[in-house]
């Protein structure tokens, strides 16, 4: 696998994360708009299967950066240091919120975690948008993309939940999906030359590529199975865990 193929893989991973985890972020950020505890729980159940299957995409993207583009990774970390701190901190807080909120029945406990989920989900999307902006190299781009990404995932999360509750057709979901993907795609295209410059040697890329290609069928099968769990209307065979 050449550096270009790795670049495409990185793009797919980032786009996949925006699409899958974006739905969880959007739902989390809008959690406060559900009036009762039970309704919040239904919304979380709608996107529940996407959490574990979605966040692995950004972890894998970080792995591609470390393994195939370590120089790009260290450059990005230097330029975007505070944004990265915000990204990982809000990511951890959002996850803790989702896993812990429903583990106790106390209303105080739950509403405190609901607040954490709302704030952390919003900061997470903003930080990701800002990180894309860091790649563009301007503070304005960072601020603009942060706001854009927050708004887009809100729409996307709402579309996924509505679709699972059977209250909309498929078209809005297609629209929001394309919308959350676009900032990622445009940014990668713009950063392409710098990315290729930061790649490791050709032989290392090839060796790594062999392993990833060998595992690809398994990766695809488990992901498709996870999507299958959310592709149907929410119902009695679903799991309410979060």
């Amino acid at each position: 696998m050449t550096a270009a193929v790795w670049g495409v893989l990185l793009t797919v991973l980032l786009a996949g994360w925006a699409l899958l985890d974006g739905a969880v972020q959007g739902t989390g950020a809008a959690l406060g708009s559900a009036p009762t505890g039970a309704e919040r729980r239904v919304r979380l159940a709608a996107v529940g299967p996407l959490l574990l299957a979605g966040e692995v995409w950004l972890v894998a993207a970080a792995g591609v950066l470390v393994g195939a583009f370590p120089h790009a990774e260290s450059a990005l970390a230097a330029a975007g240091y505070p944004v990265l701190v915000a990204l990982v901190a809000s990511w951890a807080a959002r996850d803790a919120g989702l896993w812990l909120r429903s583990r106790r029945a106390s209303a105080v406990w739950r509403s405190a975690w609901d607040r954490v989920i709302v704030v952390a989900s919003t900061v997470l999307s903003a930080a990701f948008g800002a990180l894309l902006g860091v790649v563009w190299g301007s503070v304005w781009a960072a601020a603009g993309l942060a706001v854009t990404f927050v708004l887009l995932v809100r729409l996307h999360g709402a579309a996924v939940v509505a679709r699972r509750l059977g209250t909309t057709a498929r078209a809005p979901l297609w629209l929001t999906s394309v919308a959350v993907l676009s900032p990622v795609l445009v940014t990668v295209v713009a950063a392409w030359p710098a990315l290729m410059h930061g790649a490791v040697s050709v032989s290392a890329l090839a060796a790594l590529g062999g392993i990833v290609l060998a595992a690809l069928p398994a990766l695809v099968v488990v992901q498709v199975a996870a999507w299958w769990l959310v592709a149907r209307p929410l119902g009695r065979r679903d799991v309410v865990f979060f």
Partner: protein
Amino acid sequence: MSAVDLARLQFALLAATHFLFVLLTLGLGPVVAVLGTRWAVTGREVFERATRFWGQLYLVNYALGIAAGIVLELQFGMHFPGLLDVAGEVFGAPLAVETMVAFFLESTLLGLWVFGWHQLPRWLHATLFWLVVLTGYASAFTVMVANGFLKNPVGYELVDGVAHITDTAALILNPAALVSSLHVLGACLVAGGFVLVGVSASRLRLHPATGGRQRAGRQPADVDEDLWRRSMRAGIATGLVGALLATGAGYAQFTYLDMDDAVAVYPGVVGTSLAVMMGFANLVVLGGWVLALLLIRGALFRLRPRVRNGLFRTLAVLLPAPFVVGILGWLVRELGRQPWVVVGVLRTEDVVSDQPASAVLTSLVVLVGLMVTLAVLDWWVLRRLAARGAEGLVLGAPPGQVLHDDGAGPEDLLRFGAAPEGLRAAPEVVR
């Protein structure tokens, strides 16, 4: 403190937090897999309850473990860019395999296990968890390959100051990766064993048939007692196997390690930690055999009430011990490597980023403060979940029941297959 010290401290604290979760994930995993399989094969209630109880603890522990792991993953780029610039190709490759293959599969499979509970055939569901365990172990091994390279760099050459892989097999078969992985696996099984034994001991002490002043019967009195007796047995077996593995692989590490070098820079901490680790392993092996012998004909559960209560209380109190020892083990390994980040190749002080100390301190306070807070909350929740026993488990519960407990309205209850109170009453009125 300088930026270098702060970056190292930050990494050490985050790595320790992460590792505490890893110990339990890897130690409890095989036991949940066995319980799930026995449930799939026999269909017995005790195995269903056991799978759901231990599975739920596994999940709540896993969740924070990956959050901490994610924070850790970004530390290299943020604070040790020199490591990536020089050794990125060698050190980064196993980490890339970890994130792209092993962890990716592990997490997705675990999601399928949780959320496919009511949809997948039982045999497939049980198989999924075995795959979670397998990919989890693969994930830990790839991290040890990366870490082993730092300790004992092999299979590479330096060209113009950049390391390139020349021998993949040597990199993977590196004793600092292979033997140390077995050592860590042993440590994890010990931790899993202590949690199984400690929690079961607490539950049994509170159980009407085994707790209090009575002498327990040969056979468990009910499903609940059966569950905790079985968990206790599983814990003793897991802990003993783990302690034997940790000891065997622990001594095997001396065949390639230079312990004089290891204690050179931090003699006090490294020397003491090593001594504690070795002493602890002896005690666990000894205690493990005693407990295993007491399992014959269920003698452990039928001890005289005072002896039994004292013993069970002690076992519960000892629960955190292997976690403390696991951290000491890492101190031996990581401090023992200093002043090198890659032994003989690269010094720690030469790879640190040029972020000012104030920025590193800020991120230390934010990230470590956050992760420690979340970790403590998580352990508190785990404790409460353990104390609640096998009642009111959410994992694997019918969705309608969970939402009913949450006070959902009739529309939601109908959607999730639970008959709302009013509707259920209706036919009787007609009749």
